[in-house]
């Protein structure tokens, strides 16, 4: 059975997604008109999208490795709180950012170590990290918002460059960067090997452990970047930030072509997945109005995405 591999990570899946997005866009524009395709609404959709984009890209790494990271939402909140608390106490913006990102990397590295060296299932390890960090958020803030952030910091998330929100520029730039290095980077390629067969990878001379730790660290790092964007955009740190974000990230990545079994994934697809999930959420809110359903929608979309993923894998079939 032939499987074409192109140098650019654009798969048939991505093309399908582009078509679906275009369709949804077109249909809803007709039905809801101005309300939908106005610059304000679209800008809104894409603004909120920047966090999801970063988280989903990070999740792509982990999915390729054959794992999963349920802690991304909590990492986002925790790093956000760390940074905002430091800023609140007057620390230099650049330093606070560096510390925040270091914390993010540390969290991810811990996840990676637990998964690779202690052989704990990724689901369990990251679930534990998620509840630990989320709890820590509440402990640190006692439920209060963290405010009093310097303008220079807030400008990151709220500012515009050349008329486009900074958030969008930063997240898309990062995504493009990841997309480019992913085709050529040896380290990234190693993630595919490890995700496919960690034992064989080890015996082929690939440091499975290191690759896994790197993948999880990258994932949390991106969550840390998202934390910066979110806290600067809202001008506060809140313990409840990012709740439920991990589901959207997983759904988006899987819709984009990553497989929950590992060994597959690409950033273009993930980005398209993020757009689709955001669109669907936006549409639903427009028709229904109740944000309570958002989590339910994520759940259903995830199911649908994974179902399609499996139908596709089954079509390829196993040989004798």
């Amino acid at each position, binding site marked *: 059975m032939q499987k074409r591999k192109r140098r650019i990570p654009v798969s048939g899946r991505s093309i399908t997604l582009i078509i679906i997005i275009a369709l949804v866009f077109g249909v809803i524009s007709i039905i809801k008109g101005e309300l939908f395709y106005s610059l304000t609404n679209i800008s809104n959709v894409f603004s909120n999208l920047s966090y999801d984009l970063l988280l989903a890209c990070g999740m792509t790494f982990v999915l390729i490795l054959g794992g999963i990271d349920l802690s991304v939402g909590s990492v986002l909140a925790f790093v956000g709180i760390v940074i905002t608390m430091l800023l609140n106490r007057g620390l230099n913006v650049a330093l606070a950012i560096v510390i925040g990102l270091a914390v993010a990397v540390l969290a991810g590295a811990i996840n990676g170590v*637990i998964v690779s060296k*202690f*052989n*704990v*299932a990724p*689901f*369990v*390890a990251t*679930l*534990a*990290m*998620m*509840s*630990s960090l*989320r*709890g*820590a*958020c*509440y*402990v640190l803030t006692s439920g209060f918002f963290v405010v009093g952030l310097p303008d220079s910091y807030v400008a990151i998330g709220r500012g515009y460059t050349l008329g486009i929100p900074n958030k969008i520029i930063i997240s898309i730039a990062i995504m493009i960067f990841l997309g480019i290095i992913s085709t050529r980077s040896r380290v990234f390629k190693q993630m595919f090997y490890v995700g496919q067969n960690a034992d064989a990878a080890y015996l082929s001379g690939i440091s499975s452990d290191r690759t896994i730790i790197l993948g999880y660290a990258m994932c949390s790092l991106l969550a840390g970047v998202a934390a910066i964007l979110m806290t600067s955009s809202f001008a506060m740190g809140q313990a409840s930030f990012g709740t*439920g974000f991990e*589901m959207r990230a997983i759904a988006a990545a899987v819709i984009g072509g990553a497989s*929950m079994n590992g060994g597959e994934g690409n950033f273009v697809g993930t980005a398209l997945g993020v757009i689709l999930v955001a669109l669907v959420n936006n549409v639903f809110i427009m028709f229904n109005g*109740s944000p*309570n*359903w*958002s*989590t*339910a*929608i*994520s*759940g*259903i979309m*995830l*199911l649908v995405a*994974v*179902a399609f993923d*499996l139908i596709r894998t*089954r079509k390829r079939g196993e040989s004798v």
Partner: protein
Amino acid sequence: MKKKNENILKVFSKINLHYLVLTFLIIVMAISMSMHSRYFLTITNIEVMVNTFIMEAIMALGMTMVIISGGTDISVSGVLPFTAIIFAKLMLQNVPIIVAMLVALAASGVIGLINNELRRILKIHPMVVTMAVQLTLRGLNLAITNGSVISGFSAGFQKISEFRLFGLSVPILVYIILAVVFYVFSKNHKSFLSVYFVGGNKEASAFSGMNTECVLRWVFIINALLAGLAGILSTTVYNSASYSFGQNAEMRVITAVAIGGTSLTHGGNGSIAGTLLGTLFMALIYNSFVMSGISTYYQDVFTGAMLIIAVLLSEGTRIVKEKSFKQALGDS
């Protein structure tokens, strides 16, 4: 309820190192807690300890079987309030309590069936399926109740929460019965034992003529039923039904099962006895939280840490066991 500790050091495969350590830890904890506070061994405190964890204890029984079968069921924390809400709404419509109970339970059983069918038809890992179902249910619970608490049941209903037999409340009585049944059945009944086979090697079991799909279906249905039962019991205890019942319960339940030695990663391993120990362990820990007044957020952190330790413990003893196995026969 506790497993007897045999002291045979030669034949390692018979000793359960895990249970030994766990029992030891429980005893140590109990002793240190009673030294810390003279209130520990009082009836009131024991009641509190039991009541804090009784719903999770009930759900842990079903969850053990799900995990042995090789899966997980995250949806229980959504099924619990869902069933409670349906039960409550029916009672408010003046449906007789027994009927309302049965209908609500049936609804929870249906969710369990849905969990399994989605898993089977879409061929997705149960963890993912049940997570999606949980989210959907949580959304539904919130939407149906509009965020408010349901209350105002009949006086007769209130009697249930006051009922005591030998000083034990209804949930405790239910748990004792269920624990005994699950323990006996899981060791001796063909149906429960088949879960071990399916969890160990599903394909081979199917080749031996076992209806593996049927086994899995019932595992999920029963687990959901137990969660539904916990929801109904919660309503009797709190005299109300709320979408917030059982929040994060799935974490605590899975942790209790994992601490008890059931492997989350290798199906076909585990036992009810272990879960009973794990439940006791968790109950003690949560009681210590209550006694020291630590906030619920700390508790979540702790649960997370406990889960990791539990899994490490379980994986660790597996490795130790595998290293010191002797063959049943003498040849090489």
